[in-house]
């Protein structure tokens, strides 16, 4: 087709300036069309101002506006839960305002009994009214920071160091939340405070050891009470058992004693009945039987006649008993 490419064959048309203008107009129209449309993310609202004047809130999605800066839209993330950290900072936070550069100053507080405590806490909030948020107060974030520091110190300042460190935590969170909500409403920040959470609360480093000592002493107290209770429990129940043992033994003794007495009495009764039938013979028999039993067991028997009473002193009693 194109056999010869010599310049003579180039059929350049004369530059028509009209085309330039038309092109510019089309470009302008297209860019205007694009700037007529804005998209608002799902977690946000758009605040629409026309020539500086507040017009209304745009909901998420594709929205129209007038071009060339006549309508301006500021996107405010109303659904997002925002967080401020006091006294500490989580590394890598997406929100630059989340933590301050002076956590040490933030966390140090004076308690109501003029002691010191280090308090770390978190405030969770949401932007509730984007128009108020933009137009009522300049820099609402910094204002919220200052307000929340002030409220937390007000609440801590009304409590003893013991309350702040241990038992009063829940109470402090509630009071601080209430106070901060009230202050935000008064300032018209357009923010809604969701939560105030205490994080680490501890005494200053310089006195930490003595706080530990108190805990330790408390443990020691428990321990010595437990030991004493152990001693008590070791001795008293055993003594109770032993007392019961003695009682039962005594009862056994009583039973035995009475029964034996009854037995003896019955035996005697029976014996007596027979004795009374023949007293002389029975007496004799009993006497002789006894003698028959007893006398053979005796090794030394001395028989005396009543007429030989004077021999008695010569009896070698001692010698005889010794040689035996």
């Amino acid at each position, binding site marked *: 087709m194109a056999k010869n490419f010599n310049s003579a064959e180039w059929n350049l048309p004369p530059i028509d300036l009209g085309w330039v203008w038309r092109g510019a107009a089309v470009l302008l129209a297209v860019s205007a069309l694009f700037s007529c449309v804005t998209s608002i993310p799902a977690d946000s609202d758009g605040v629409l101002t026309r020539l500086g004047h507040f017009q209304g809130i745009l909901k998420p999605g594709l929205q129209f506006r007038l071009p060339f800066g006549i309508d301006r839209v500021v996107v405010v993330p109303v659904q997002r839960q925002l967080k401020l950290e006091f006294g500490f900072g989580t590394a890598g936070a997406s929100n630059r305002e989340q933590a301050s550069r002076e956590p040490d100053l933030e966390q140090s507080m004076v308690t109501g009994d003029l002691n010191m405590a280090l308090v770390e806490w978190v405030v969770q909030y949401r932007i509730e009214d984007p128009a108020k948020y933009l137009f009522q107060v300049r820099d609402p974030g910094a204002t919220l920071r*200052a307000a929340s520091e002030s409220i937390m110190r007000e609440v801590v300042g009304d409590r003893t160091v013991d309350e702040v460190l241990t038992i009063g935590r829940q109470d402090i969170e509630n009071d601080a939340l209430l106070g901060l909500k009230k202050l935000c409403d008064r300032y018209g920040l357009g923010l809604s405070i969701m939560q105030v959470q205490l994080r680490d609360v501890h005494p200053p480093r310089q006195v930490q050891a003595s*706080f530990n000592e108190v805990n330790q002493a408390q443990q020691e107290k428990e321990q010595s*009470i437990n030991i004493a209770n152990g001693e008590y429990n070791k001795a008293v129940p055993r003594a109770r058992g032993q007392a019961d043992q003695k*009682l039962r033994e005594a009862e056994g003794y009583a039973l035995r004693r009475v029964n034996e007495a009854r037995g003896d009495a019955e035996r005697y009764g029976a014996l007596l009945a027979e004795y009374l039938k023949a007293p002389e013979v029975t007496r004799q028999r009993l006497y002789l039987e006894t003698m028959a039993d007893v006398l053979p067991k005796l090794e030394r028997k001395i028989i005396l006649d009543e007429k030989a009473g004077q021999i008695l002193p010569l009896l070698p009693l001692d010698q005889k008993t010794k040689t035996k």
Partner: protein
Amino acid sequence: MKPVSLLKWAFLLGLFILFSGTAFVVPETDYVILTQFGKPVGHPIATAGLHFKLPWIQEMHRLEKRVLEWDGPSAEMPTKDKLYIVLDSFGRWRIKDPLAYFLRLRDERSARSRLDDILGSETRNTVARHALVELIRTTKLRKAILDEASVNASGTAAAGLPPIQIGRVGLEEEIAEQSRAKLAEFGIELLDVRFKRINYNPAVSSKIFDRMVSERRQIAERFRSEGAGEAARILGSKDRDLSQIESEAYRKVQAIQGKADAEATAIYAAAYNQSPEAREFYGFTRTLETYRSALNRDTTVVLTTEGGFLRYLKGDSQPPHSP
């Protein structure tokens, strides 16, 4: 391009320049004051929207309409009780009278320096008139919640909150009240002043730490002594309970045994005492039994042939009495 069309474009450009020097947008967040050769003309513009002015001759100044923050520098000052504290406060203010503000201060930087001066000095004055505890505490009648541990410590400094007359919020209001009139002439409305941070100065805080340490020591000592006391009480009641148990047991044992002995005695008496023969026979049998048990192989007996057992040894085989 033809000369006619060029002229047309130049005209359009000129119109645009004129318009841009004439019309201006006032946002919701600003006041605008127009000045003509440095002198304000007309009322300050407070409504947002499109407004017009004379080009080149009139100049436009924007002032902030929103509430502004004053973050005070942290300053060291003494309280009435001679404690040096570092106080950091903040306030909130806005431009109420833009014209007065513009005439007297011109810009925000000078406004800030006025606020620093006025609020700073009022804060110092107020702080110097009150004890530290007034700056710290708020609620006058609040009683500290005591845990089990501190209940026993009633009477020590650790247990309670020192009393106050005015309190933190009252003093903040006092400072704001005193500053308001002075700031009003600058067209500034002061909304409030609040203490942000109150801390002891480093020299004081070491003393505070010493006090806290001694306070804790004392609580620890109390715990230890309470523990020892409680232990002693328990050991004491152990001894008491032991004595009680043992003595009661002794008493009961004696009573039971005594009663049994008495009963046995009664039974014996009833058996042995039923008639004179019975009494005599008891004596006889009992004596015989005693012989059996009392005499053993070590016993030496001296027996006479007269009467009794050996009487027959002498050949006396006659019945003693019978004929």
